[in-house]
């Protein structure tokens, strides 16, 4: 029993250390790979506590290997959008201007009840109020309501009326998102001219968002010279 007691304490601190190494992302919404690692780590920890015949290193080593692989994978995902798409997939637009994209819904294996439930959870009871609804890679539904349906705010004025289409990311960490250029109805020349007005080039930009009315927001990278 004393062996089980000591092992449990060791495993407890080991799992905490593992979660700390993986970082805060583990404590929020889980991506598929993060969910897999979390489940595996907990199962490995349980095995060692339940069966004292298993050497402790037989638990410590797989946990640290899993954690290291997860951290390195998330680093590669940060550096490579292609890897991110491969591992996490893409967010999928399931509602546009109040109309459900049934083909997308089928490919996600969602029913009408699933999407209705998610909309209601977001406070939307009428699908015609939805300008755009996106199923994120974590499985959550993000909803952007029509301008008329949104709660009033001080910023809403005549100059911003009618913005039913959400802004999309045009530059992400220095890389241009071509799909957003098409979405906003602009070309590379417009982008270069816009950035040029602020003496910027795409690689200087941490994030740039733009909507169909060409209303944009730019955040430069820190420490840019």
């Amino acid at each position: 029993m004393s062996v089980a007691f000591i092992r449990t304490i060791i495993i407890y601190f080991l799992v905490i250390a593992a979660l700390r190494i993986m970082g805060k992302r583990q404590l929020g919404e889980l991506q598929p790979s993060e969910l897999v690692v979390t489940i595996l780590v907990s199962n490995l920890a349980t095995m060692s506590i339940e069966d004292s015949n298993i050497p402790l290193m037989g638990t410590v080593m797989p946990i640290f290997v899993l954690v290291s692989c997860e951290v390195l994978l998330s680093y590669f995902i940060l550096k490579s959008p292609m890897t991110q798409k491969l591992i996490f997939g893409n967010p999928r637009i399931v509602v546009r201007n109040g109309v459900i994209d049934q083909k997308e819904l089928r490919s996600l294996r969602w029913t009408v009840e699933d999407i209705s439930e998610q909309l209601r959870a977001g406070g939307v009871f009428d699908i015609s109020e939805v300008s755009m609804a996106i199923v994120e890679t974590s499985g959550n539904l993000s909803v952007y309501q029509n301008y008329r349906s949104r709660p009033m705010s001080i910023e809403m004025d005549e100059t911003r009326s009618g913005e039913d289409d959400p802004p999309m990311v045009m530059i992400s960490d220095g890389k241009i998102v071509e799909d957003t250029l098409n979405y906003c109805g602009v070309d590379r020349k417009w982008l270069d001219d816009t950035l040029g007005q602020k003496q910027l080039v795409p690689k200087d930009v941490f994030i740039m968002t733009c909507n169909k009315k060409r209303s944009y927001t730019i955040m430069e990278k820190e420490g840019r010279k």
Partner: protein
Amino acid sequence: MKRVITSLVLLPLMLGFSLFSMNKVNYLEGAVLRMTTEILEASNAEETRRLIDEVEGLVSFWKKEERVFRILVRHNQVESIGIAIARLPALAKHGSKSDLQSEVLAIRWEISDIKNTEAFKLGNVF
């Protein structure tokens, strides 16, 4: 970046430990097989004094190496070999040749089985 560096340090450490584990199991298996071969030869030649010396050699070797072996391998497997080795001195002094040899063969099989399980082979991976 700190986490990435921690992971880059942890992975080779774990790899190093698994290589150490494989090496240690190989070494122990080789040593036990050698000693048990000597025991079988002494038993077949009915050289009682040599047989007792070889058995005592194996017992003291196992006592020395058992603690490290426990860290690397399932404890019940280590205990099983330990129990068989513990029987050998009495069998060498007072038991029958066939009982002694069957215990020795069981030890050889178990240690080889542990080594085969730890070896990096496709069969073990799958």
